[in-house]
């Protein structure tokens, strides 16, 4: 169906069900319980999950397939964000033109940068992309935000002002916020069931729907002859060149496609929250998507999405656990013990969430080089081995080639 084999189709269906039911799945704890701290089912975080999922899927098309490690993908994210906000400023708050323009501009930008950086490979390529991204950041942060020519509004971030033209905006009929044909991105239906509260948000479902399309396209790319070509680049580009194939068009296409994915993610970020800050282009943001992809499993289909989810979860949930919350958790212990526990855990939560994330990243890279996906596969294998109990067939060693 849809040009997919049965296995990929079932993966797509599982992902679709998970994203559509995310508001339920991510809120496993009742709203009044102490564990509600760990609920992730609120619109902002769910939007981040799928948007950064798109970003990581796109990054994986370049990194996972061709092995070209770009350290500058945040630049495309930023370009997408700025394009989308400019559409809000000029045309009005409908998100579709903004999202469309963000894909187009980031694609063009990626073409330009790709033409230059792809002349080199390996570490030189990484450094070149990093240099371009930092240049873009400096441009957005400072150079293009002077009072005479204010394209990015610098540190404050580009936002929509009351005196912007907004030619097609009708504030009587349409909400004064990003919307899709009148349906505000911020519109949220809260449903209370028993002690649980679930939030169904328009912006989230738009992003989730677009992520499914992106995911489907990524599967098709992975399984296509084009995808095979990209894998060939990764395994041995030199040999490929010697056979008379020019690999440059393929890598450039992959670079532009992943740049467009990043731009789309940036556009969606602006669509759900109409402010584009320059720090989206900083090298830390570029590094984050590399982490997401490696954490989840580079070269796998679902890995980057999982990695993006994990990192965003840590950033938003663990960073909000303060000492007050900790004292609340351990209040059942005697005073001395309580303070001891709080002191022990304190460095790993709140502003120390980076530390926890770093430890997890270290553990994953050391013990699960294939990322979370490999972890899942190992667990799956363990279960199936137990089930079949065919322990007597030792793994046969195969000759190297």
């Amino acid at each position, binding site marked *: 169906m849809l040009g997919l084999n049965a296995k990929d189709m079932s993966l797509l269906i599982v992902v679709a069900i998970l994203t559509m039911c995310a508001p339920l799945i991510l809120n496993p704890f009742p709203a009044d319980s102490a564990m509600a701290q760990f*609920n992730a089912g*609120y*619109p*902002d*975080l769910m939007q*981040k999950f799928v948007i950064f999922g798109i970003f990581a899927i796109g990054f994986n098309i370049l990194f996972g397939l061709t092995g070209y490690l770009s350290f500058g993908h945040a630049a495309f994210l930023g370009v997408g964000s700025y394009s989308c906000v400019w559409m809000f400023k000029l045309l009005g708050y409908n998100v579709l033109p903004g999202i469309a323009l963000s894909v187009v501009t980031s694609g063009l930008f990626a073409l330009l940068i790709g033409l230059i950086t792809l002349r080199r490979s390996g570490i030189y390529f990484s450094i070149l992309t990093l240099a371009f991204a930092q240049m873009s950041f400096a441009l957005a*942060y*400072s150079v293009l935000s002077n*009072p005479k020519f204010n394209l990015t509004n*610098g*540190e*404050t*971030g580009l*936002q929509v*002002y*009351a*005196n912007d033209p907004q030619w097609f905006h009708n504030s009587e009929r349409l909400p*004064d*916020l990003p919307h899709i044909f009148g*349906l505000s991105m*911020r*519109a*949220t*239906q*809260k449903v209370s069931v028993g002690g649980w509260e679930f*939030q*169904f*948000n*328009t912006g989230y*479902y738009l992003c989730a729907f677009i992520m499914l399309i992106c995911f489907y396209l990524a599967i098709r790319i992975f399984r296509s002859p084009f995808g095979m070509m990209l894998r060939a680049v990764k395994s041995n580009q030199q040999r490929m060149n010697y056979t008379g194939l020019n690999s440059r068009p393929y890598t450039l296409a992959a670079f532009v496609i992943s740049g467009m994915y990043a731009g789309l993610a940036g556009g969606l970020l602006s669509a759900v*929250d*109409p*402010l584009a*800050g320059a*720090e*989206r282009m900083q090298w830390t943001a570029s590094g984050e998507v590399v982490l997401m992809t490696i954490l989840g499993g580079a070269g796998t289909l679902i890995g980057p999405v999982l990695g993006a989810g994990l990192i965003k979860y840590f950033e*938003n949930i663990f*960073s*909000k656990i*303060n000492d*007050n919350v900790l004292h609340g958790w351990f209040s059942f212990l005697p005073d001395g013990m309580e303070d001891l526990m709080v002191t022990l855990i304190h460095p790993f939560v*709140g*502003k120390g969430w980076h530390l926890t994330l770093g430890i997890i990243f270290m553990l994953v890279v050391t013990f699960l080089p294939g990322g979370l996906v490999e972890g899942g596969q190992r667990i799956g294998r363990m279960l199936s081995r137990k089930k079949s109990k065919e322990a007597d067939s030792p793994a046969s060693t195969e000759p190297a080639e």
Partner: protein
Amino acid sequence: MTKSNLTRRGMLKTGAVTGAGVALPTIFTASSAAAFTNEPTGSSVTLGFNVPQTGPYADEGADELRAYELAVEHLNGGGDGGMMNTFSSKSLDGSGILGRKVEFVTGDTQTKSDAARASAKSMIEKDGAVMITGGSSSGVAIAVQGLCQEAGVIFMAGLTHSNDTTGKDKKANGFRHFFNGYMSGAALAPVLAARYGKDRRAYHLTADYTWGWTQQESIAAATEALGWQTVNNVLTPLAQTDFSSYVAPVLNSGADVLVLNHYGGNMVNSLTAAVQFGLREKQVNGKDFEIVVPLYSRLMAKGAGENVKGIFGSTNWHWSLTDEGSKAFVKSFGTKYGFPPSQAAHTCYVQTLLYADAVQRAGSHNPCAVAEALEGFEFDGLGNGPTLYRAEDHQCFKDVLVVKGKDNPTSEFDLLEIVEITPRAQVEYAADHPMFAGGSLGSCNPGA
């Protein structure tokens, strides 16, 4: 050939699915019964404290958080009540806000607009915060203020000194107690002219964002009006930590005053660099070279150590003030934490009390009602003398302190001495002053 099987059951199924599909969007648009965003219903009300816990303003953020916790304690009837006892409005009685216990959630802005908005959004969407306050950077404050306007909650700005916060970026749901760049210029310039003379040549190093720009503009305008010249203005990135390459060119520029439009960690580093280059011992144009830091705080003075001695600046509040409000605040803050509060802590504490008081007087948390209660509100007893919350731009007007790094500090907290208390009349400006023009408050948004 296609073969169609039209059955009654099939028709019903299709009809039901289509109906559900058509009806689906309506469940997203249907608004809940609440009259405004996060209307508190239970026995408690949640406030969101969004401060920088990492980055160049982390020290200020930590002190702000202490002040917020103190304010919550006082609102709930704990501690000695602090400035609630000296506040001219007597509607707060220590029983929370409107009888509800005050609870709070915290977040880290990282001094980045994006992160600050994400943190504020999670407070509003997940924790049900009905008011957001905090910020130690004007860029962040403006970004979060815009978010609160969209989401329909009140934003009580913390430490934000840019003219834009209540100028071109002002919002109906946002309120600022802190003073701004214009006021610093108006208070500081006459003192500088009196001490250093009227024929000075100033070189500005400016943090490259909204606060730096507007403060530089304000200081340059105010000093030029008294006869100074502005030789150069160099913008420095907010994340910069080494300023030696920016300080070196000052020596050959012919300037005899260096104005550091830096705050927090930035100012500590740039001042240290300037002192290390020996600027303070130099003679230029036959005059002693001078350094000015227009926006000063005790935390910065502490960070810069010896280097601040004799350096002029302005501040919103200082713990050595002797009015009843300041004394009460310093006492309860000192009892709880063991050291005096900073100006950031003061403005955040005051903003929390002002919000609680406005809700109490309005009888509702509805942002529109709160805004109405705050607009044009005149109060006293919160450490700055008689103060007005101007209705036109939601900016507080009060006296401004001109301070100087103390030559002989008696303790590690006694680092600044007050040179002059500039009366409110001298720092007032029209709401449509050119430095503040270009924006509009819009109308208050209760959300929901």
